[in-house]
């Protein structure tokens, strides 16, 4: 089936004329038609645009010299502004927003020939770890526990992208990761998710959650596909002052790099009390696989890991409280009716427009930046952030890459969601430190747990050394030979 192909395979097939871009896109839009009502992975499906783009791609392919992603159908997280296509951030407040501009990352993908199938669902403004906060409904994880039909969450915030890729209704998708929003849903949905180094992909035109943490990255079914997508997405952008002015290396070449002598660090602090034996076993399996591939395994310590989550939940809300101030109903987006004054307009618009979790984080952020609390919260958190960064710097003096679990558990049931938001935040415990330090990190599916759900391992690299992640990720992938697929997917839907 065309929808079963990887990006690399499809790119080859298109060039061999085994099938056309139109056929490839049609296979995906058709599958979306069958599955999306249930999965709710896409907020907006742009089938007509996709088919027109595929026709263009066929022309380019026929003319030869078409860029790598020509004709490859992708899902775009609905946090990337797409010109002329509604962009909602899964929020009511942007429910009618059609940007007159294209984000740098999606523009780069379009330049590389990609076909966009639509805008994928997410937690509202990327705030959440289970895709339960979208104003446009929850996303269902295409995986189910063996013999158990209960609906599981896909993780978040890039849950729509993860579900779409896992269910084969996109060959790949863009995600954004602020504290784990690419890696955790990738782990929950059994796919590869790569968060590049902060600054590797431009943030211009991507709706901001926490500016010092947000980073776009690819979500795919293989490490090689992640390398191909990242190649197109990355690069310096003068429109983003925090974008790195560095050449983008050949990521795909890194997939076949030898791991002989590579030093892999195993941080002691990622083994918290109460961690499941099953997860520990999978982690050990990953360690063994890398050792077998020629790596040297080194125990390391990242002593400030335990402060990561608390620090993150100060800095991210602080930035979000300011970043989301522009949604005021004055210039774009939804405006509440019947306001009696300007303040009333703000209150009504923002109360009606934002969901509960977004409102909570805006309030937390406003609080930690307030006079009298700034030093105790925000400033302290920034200092701890420096210590966390230093942890990684000193670890990377001894090792080349770190291996940890991606998330503390496999996907959980929609009904099992914790009532306490802080419990929910614990999902990000392993992903947040790398975000705080700006390190690149990737989740690779390695095994199924005893209930038939995928578990992922996380690789964390040096700044701007995505190549080592990709090399180690490819080795893990090869050794794990993870071939399980979810029951809900294109061509296999029950």
């Amino acid at each position, binding site marked *: 089936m065309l929808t079963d192909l990887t990006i690399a395979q499809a790119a080859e097939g298109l060039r061999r004329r085994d099938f056309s871009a139109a056929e490839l896109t049609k296979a995906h839009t058709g599958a979306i038609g069958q599955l999306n009502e249930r999965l709710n992975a896409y907020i907006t499906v742009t089938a007509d645009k996709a088919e027109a783009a595929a026709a263009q791609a066929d022309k380019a392919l026929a003319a030869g010299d078409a860029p790598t992603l020509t004709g490859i159908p992708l899902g775009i997280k609905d946090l990337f502004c797409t010109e002329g296509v509604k962009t909602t951030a899964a929020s009511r407040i942007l429910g009618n927003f059609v940007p007159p501009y294209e984000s740098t990352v999606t523009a780069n993908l379009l330049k590389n020939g990609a076909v966009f199938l639509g805008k994928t669902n997410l937690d509202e403004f990327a705030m959440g770890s289970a895709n339960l906060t979208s104003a446009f409904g929850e996303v269902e994880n295409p995986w189910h526990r063996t013999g158990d039909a209960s609906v599981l969450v896909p993780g978040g915030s890039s849950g729509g992208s993860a579900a779409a890729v896992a269910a084969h209704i996109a060959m790949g998708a863009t995600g954004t990761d602020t504290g784990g929003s690419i890696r955790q849903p990738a782990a929950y949905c059994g796919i590869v998710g790569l968060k590049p180094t902060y600054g590797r992909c431009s*943030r211009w*035109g991507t709706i901001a959650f*926490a*500016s010092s943490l947000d980073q776009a990255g690819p979500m795919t079914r293989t490490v090689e596909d992640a390398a191909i997508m990242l190649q197109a997405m990355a690069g310096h952008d003068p429109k983003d002052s*925090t974008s790195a002015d560095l050449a983008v290396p050949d990521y795909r070449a890194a997939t076949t790099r030898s791991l002989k002598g590579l030093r892999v660090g195993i941080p002691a602090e990622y083994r918290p009390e109460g961690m499941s034996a099953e997860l520990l076993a999978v982690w050990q399996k990953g360690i063994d696989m890398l050792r077998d591939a020629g790596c040297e395994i080194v125990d390391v310590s990242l002593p400030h890991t335990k402060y990561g989550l608390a620090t993150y939940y100060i800095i991210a809300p602080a930035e979000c409280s300011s970043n989301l101030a522009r949604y005021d109903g004055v210039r774009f987006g939804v405006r509440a009716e019947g306001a009696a004054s300007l303040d009333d307009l703000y209150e009504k618009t923002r109360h009606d427009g934002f969901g509960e979790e977004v409102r909570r984080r805006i309030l937390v952020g406003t609080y930690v*930046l307030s006079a009298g609390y700034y030093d105790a919260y925000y400033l302290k958190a920034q200092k701890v952030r420096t210590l966390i960064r230093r942890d990684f710097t000193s670890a990377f003096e001894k090792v080349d890459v770190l291996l940890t679990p991606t998330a503390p558990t496999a996907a959980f049931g929609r009904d099992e969601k914790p009532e306490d938001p802080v419990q929910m935040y614990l999902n990000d415990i392993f992903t947040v430190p790398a975000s705080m330090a700006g390190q690149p990190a990737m989740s690779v599916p390695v095994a199924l747990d005893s209930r038939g759900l995928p578990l992922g391992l996380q690789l964390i690299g040096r700044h701007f050394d995505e190549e080592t992640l990709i090399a180690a990720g490819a080795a893990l992938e090869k050794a794990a030979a993870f071939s399980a697929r979810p029951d809900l997917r294109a061509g296999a839907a029950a």
Partner: protein
Amino acid sequence: MSYVIEGSTGPWEIVVGLEVHAQVISNSKLFSGASTLFGGEPNTHVSLIDAGFPGMLPVINRGCVAQAVRTGLGLKARINLESRFDRKNYFYADLPQGYQISQFAHPIIGEGKIEIELSDGSTREIGITRLHLEQDAGKLMHDQDPKRSFVDLNRAGVALMEIVSEPDIRTPEEAGAYLRKLRQILRYLGTCDGNMDEGSMRADVNVSVRKAGEPFRTRCEIKNVNSIRFVTQAIEIEAARQVEIWESGGEVDQETRLFDPGRGETRSLRSKEDAHDYRYFPDPDLLPLVIEQSWVDQLKACLPELPDEKRARLQKEYGITAYDAGVLVAEQAIADFYETVAKGRDGKSAAAWMTGDFFAALNRTGKSIEESPVGADKLGAMLDLIADGTINGKIAKEVLETMFETGEAPLEIVERKGLRQVTDTGAIEKAADEVLTKNADKLEQYLGGKDKLFGFFVGQVMKATQGKANPAMVNEILKKKIHG
């Protein structure tokens, strides 16, 4: 010059500090490429960044940074090679992002100073605390519709320099002198046009009062005063209000006030309790602003000569008084004009003509120096005619007046009107003889000791020659004739 308010409990002195917002002269805004032109149709100079659209990011305009550094150099201030942009968070309809990007904790420019001149000729130094870069807000329009307000974002995102003085100012006059001097420096540097009526320079005035020797008392901030005259008025009125409160046993509340020039009063805008909590924090969209000392040195090397230095040089080079030099450096264009006129000529005479008849004529015709119908070359040519004896000073006044009317060259006027100075001894002697004969009685009185009458004789001879006689020669000939 001391300024005290005589209260019922004795004299009070005033303490004033000024925060000036000066719009930076630049082609584009501080963080976007949109134009900064004044007076465009509403919302025609607005980029998606200025309008705070989702996903838009600021990128610092290096030209604006250069202007801030040049201003800092002009204020003899410390240039901070590393500074930072913070977000100042508050909600208002003219603030699209919901925050203003400003420099709170780490401004680009640190301590500096300005020397001000006062009307009694004395000078004082006023300290500059800091200068920082920030974005301007948009403009609300309440008069376009009976029910709705509109927003014009043309100004949103334009670069401002906020220049904060130390609380060194002690009189309303000093406040005015400070603003004039600051504006003069900014205009010399070309970093702000200083037009207060267009809002490109605005002042927030911090005022408190105290008894001599006391520490500072509570101050009030008067926001957005838009002329120098209003600043001095607002200080007088606000200081008097505070004295009255203290003397009646009350407490001055720290608050933000507005000056209403129509009513001649200041009114409370918001109290300290209602003050915004701006929740400043470093803008994560921008890296720290790091500049190189070598770049600062380059900018320094290219600075124009500033008013203080220019005044000192003009005094020395052209031998003119401090007062005249001060008048001539008030604007760069005036100083340039003067130097063109004075070069190779008598600087004192050039200064006297410019500050006297020339400025008077400009004033009368309501023209600026740039619009003067008499250019520096023509004024210079006129001075040459005086120097070489073609005309005398009295005739020159008439020539200058005609130059203003017709734009002709001075020599043309002299020839056309036949104004050449009479240096023919015979003609002057003849006129002198006639005058002395006709006024024999006066001659007698003069010889009897009424010395003042000599001037009368000179005047009569001048009159007889239609003012064209060389006055020195008239003097000499008369003396010879009377005293033999």
